[in-house]
């Protein structure tokens, strides 16, 4: 029996009350969803229209759904941490044990970075990139579907760890020797490794896919310097993905080899070098931060220009700033561990490189502000997120410069000051950028706008909640509170911890309002003008097609003669295209992505629990599926000129209903 199930036995299913209640909630929610879909008889529709879909716009929606679910999980982790720390002082132990608390903060970081941040970036890419460059699809539609499903199953694997076994308790980057087999003998770290391996492969495949899309599939006339700035920002992020993610894959593989085969890369014994892990993981980890934030820069650039009704100030300098940041992000990784003892000269080099990043970033901030100058500014929700971003990102950036000075870093390293800094960047920068982009592009993909009034309320809840939750952490950090504490003895810290906890309800109300925004917007969809396509008097190509766009995006591929091509058409500088429709070839839906990813999930699970026979069986099945898929040849279907004409005249929505 032992061999049959590897390390898996009945104890893996035994958990404490809190974990069990989480499990029950997840199980109930899943049952409700399954019941709902069955009741409405929508399984076939779900399978044919969504699960097997190769349309980037639909894949984008599916990314977004996973992101929202994982955001919920990540926020719940945060709620537990803030609640614990608001009470666990002196003799009070709080409601979470130390072991559980460690799992919670590890899961929080992993979830937020890999599944909320990365997922939202890929969702936005899928929505916007083909439309903005005037393409009908991505370069490799099937690969795109596979990427999504790999992403989805790795998210599922995180959640499985709550039912079967445990999650990593070693922080979101799992430093050895703590994460080695000697000090973490359980399956938690293995879950972490294989979740990241699967989602890492997904990111790499998407990275290559979209890079080729941007470089090879732009509409005729769209030279590099005519690309929308969002595409440039995505381009920077994609270069980082393709160069940095293989380092993560290799590093995690080495850690896994240490744990499973008893190798000595990062062990303390037999010549292993734990510090090498820290170097390697940050050689990926620092670019990763920029993979998240560069697209946010791009989103804000689009928004500030559209809502000021002006062309972007300093386009060329913006492009150069993006590219310089892309490059610099590879030569600053050591600032994450100045205290490791690399020596004064090395620390000085990396400190200076880090300070240098503030220069192109400053260029961007000033470009945004100058874009607003003398513009007709519309303070809609996307613009509110932008203004909050400028404030939080600038203060967070300045504390970042402070941290980049090695002597100061020696004091602040691993303190809550650092936590406050990077949450300013990741929430104020990345997350607010995603929210802004969501309310900006939402009408494009659904045909209705998010409710504006609720959007403002949601914004204010988030903004106030953020300030309450994270500003006290700067002070706490300076007072000496370190990160990852589940309990502390200094009573003077408690009021600040309580203020931080008070920020959480605001954020939760903000999230609820955001969900209501979608519902109310849907209810009012008939009265909205978004269906016409151009919701905000936009400048770029995505606004020139209907909302939601037809599967082929553009009936006629546009010719681009200027930087803001749609604006040029509206200004009368360029004539709209002459309409003569032709047959369009689109890839046919396939379920291979779903199945291949499903077996990748099983392989991951089998390795985590050392069920080797099952893992090999699944690997063989996966390879067979890949071979069968390559055997099929190009699987495309034709949308005839007649159908295209029909869709274009009726609008895609009404055409679908008729």
């Amino acid at each position: 029996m032992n061999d049959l199930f590897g390390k898996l036995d009945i104890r893996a299913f035994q958990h404490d009350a809190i974990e069990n209640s989480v499990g029950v909630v997840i199980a109930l929610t899943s049952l409700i969803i399954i019941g709902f879909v069955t009741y409405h008889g929508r399984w076939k529709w779900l399978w044919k229209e969504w699960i097997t879909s190769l349309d980037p716009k639909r894949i984008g929606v599916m990314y977004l759904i996973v992101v929202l679910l994982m955001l919920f999980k990540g926020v719940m982790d945060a709620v537990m941490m803030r609640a614990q720390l608001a009470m666990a002082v002196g003799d009070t132990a709080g409601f979470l044990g130390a072991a559980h608390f460690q799992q919670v903060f590890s899961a929080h970081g992993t979830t937020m970075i890999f599944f909320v941040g990365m997922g939202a970036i890929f969702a936005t890419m899928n929505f916007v990139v083909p439309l903005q460059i005037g393409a009908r699809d991505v370069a490799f539609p099937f690969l795109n579907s596979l990427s999504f499903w790999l992403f989805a199953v790795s998210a599922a694997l995180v959640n499985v760890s709550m039912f079967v076994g445990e999650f990593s308790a070693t922080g979101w980057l799992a430093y050895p020797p703590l994460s080695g087999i000697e000090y973490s003998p359980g399956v938690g770290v293995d879950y972490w490794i294989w979740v990241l391996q699967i989602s890492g492969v997904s990111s790499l495949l998407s990275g290559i896919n979209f890079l080729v899309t941007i470089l090879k599939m732009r509409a005729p006339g769209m030279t590099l310097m005519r690309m929308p700035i969002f595409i440039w920002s995505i381009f920077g992020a994609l270069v980082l993905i393709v160069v940095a993610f293989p380092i993560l894959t290799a590093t995690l593989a080495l850690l896994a080899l240490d744990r499973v085969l008893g190798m000595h890369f990062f062990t303390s014994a037999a010549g292993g070098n734990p510090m090498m892990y820290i170097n390697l993981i940050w050689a990926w980890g620092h670019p990763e931060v920029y993979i998240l934030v560069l697209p946010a820069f791009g989103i804000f650039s689009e928004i500030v220009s559209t809502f000021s009704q002006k062309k972007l100030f300093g386009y060329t300098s913006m492009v150069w700033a993006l590219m310089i940041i892309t490059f610099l992000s590879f030569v600053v990784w050591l600032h994450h561990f100045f205290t490791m003892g690399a020596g004064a000269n090395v620390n000085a080099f990396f400190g200076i490189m880090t300070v240098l990043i503030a220069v192109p970033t400053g260029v961007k901030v000033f470009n945004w502000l100058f874009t607003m100058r003398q513009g007709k500014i519309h303070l809609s929700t996307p613009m509110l997120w932008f203004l909050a971003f400028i404030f939080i990102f600038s203060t967070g950036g300045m504390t970042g410069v402070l941290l980049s000075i090695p002597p100061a870093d020696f004091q602040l390293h691993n303190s809550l000051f650092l936590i406050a800094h990077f949450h300013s960047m990741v929430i104020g920068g990345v997350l607010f950028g995603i929210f802004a982009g969501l309310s900006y592009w939402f009408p494009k993909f659904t045909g209705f706008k998010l409710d504006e009034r609720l959007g403002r309320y949601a914004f204010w809840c988030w903004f106030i909640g953020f300030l309450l939750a994270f500003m006290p952490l700067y002070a706490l950090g300076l007072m000496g509170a370190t990160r990852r504490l589940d309990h502390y003895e200094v009573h003077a810290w408690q009021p600040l911890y309580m203020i931080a906890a008070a920020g959480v309800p605001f954020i939760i109300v903000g999230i609820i309002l955001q969900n209501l925004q979608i519902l109310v917007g849907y209810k009012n969809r008939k009265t909205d003008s978004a269906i016409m396509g151009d919701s905000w008097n936009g400048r770029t190509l995505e606004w020139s097609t209907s909302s939601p766009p037809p599967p082929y995006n553009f009936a006629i591929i546009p010719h681009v003669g200027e930087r803001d091509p749609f604006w040029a058409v509206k200004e009368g500088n360029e004539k709209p295209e002459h309409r003569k429709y032709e047959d369009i070839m689109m890839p046919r839906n396939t379920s291979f992505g779903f199945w291949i990813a499903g077996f990748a999930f099983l392989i991951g699970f089998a390795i985590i629990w050392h069920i080797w026979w099952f893992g090999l069986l699944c690997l063989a099945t996966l390879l067979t599926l890949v071979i069968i898929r390559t055997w099929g040849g190009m699987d495309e279907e034709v949308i005839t000129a007649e159908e295209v004409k029909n869709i274009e005249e009726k609008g895609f929505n009404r055409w679908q209903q008729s």
Partner: protein
Amino acid sequence: MAAELAEHAHPEHDREVFERTIFGFWMYLMSDCVLFGTLFATYAVLQDSLAGGPSGKELFNLPYALLETLILLTSSFTSGLAMLSAHKKNLLRTILYFAITFILGASFLTLEINEFSHMVQEGNSWQRSAFLSSYFTLVSTHGLHITVGLLWMTVMMAQVLVRGFLPETLKRLTCLCLFWHFLDIVWIFIFTFVYLMGVT
């Protein structure tokens, strides 16, 4: 069949897909290059961490590694010949040259496994020291790529035999050959940095 007919009706579309795929495959190869770069870097850091175990000088057999190198280089040459024949749509030669490439690749793999098993039998496994961990990982990652390449080659030979030279098939053969040449280049670096420099 309908899909195949559609393909021939759109040569322009085929050409675009071909260019895109080759370009994307190059991107993949470059990312794989970073992966090997990471393994080379760890090897460079750990090569002196012997923990009392043997060094490369005591373990490596240079003529043996040279033999492996020559076999792999020859296989790269024959895969090139196979590709030329495929472009001329010469079925017999394509299969013949790929078969030779396959046999050479399989021999390389056999030699490598043999080398590994000798080391393990003498008590110098990957658990012995950090140096040996990094050695086994670097070299066997290359070996794993070769294995995947051999599997891929088998599938492609079958595809050529069954379906002939469709634009699809030529596209995949081109990727396969790029992959094979790439592995050759990685091996040159392994031969130089691990074996040649390890022995001196």
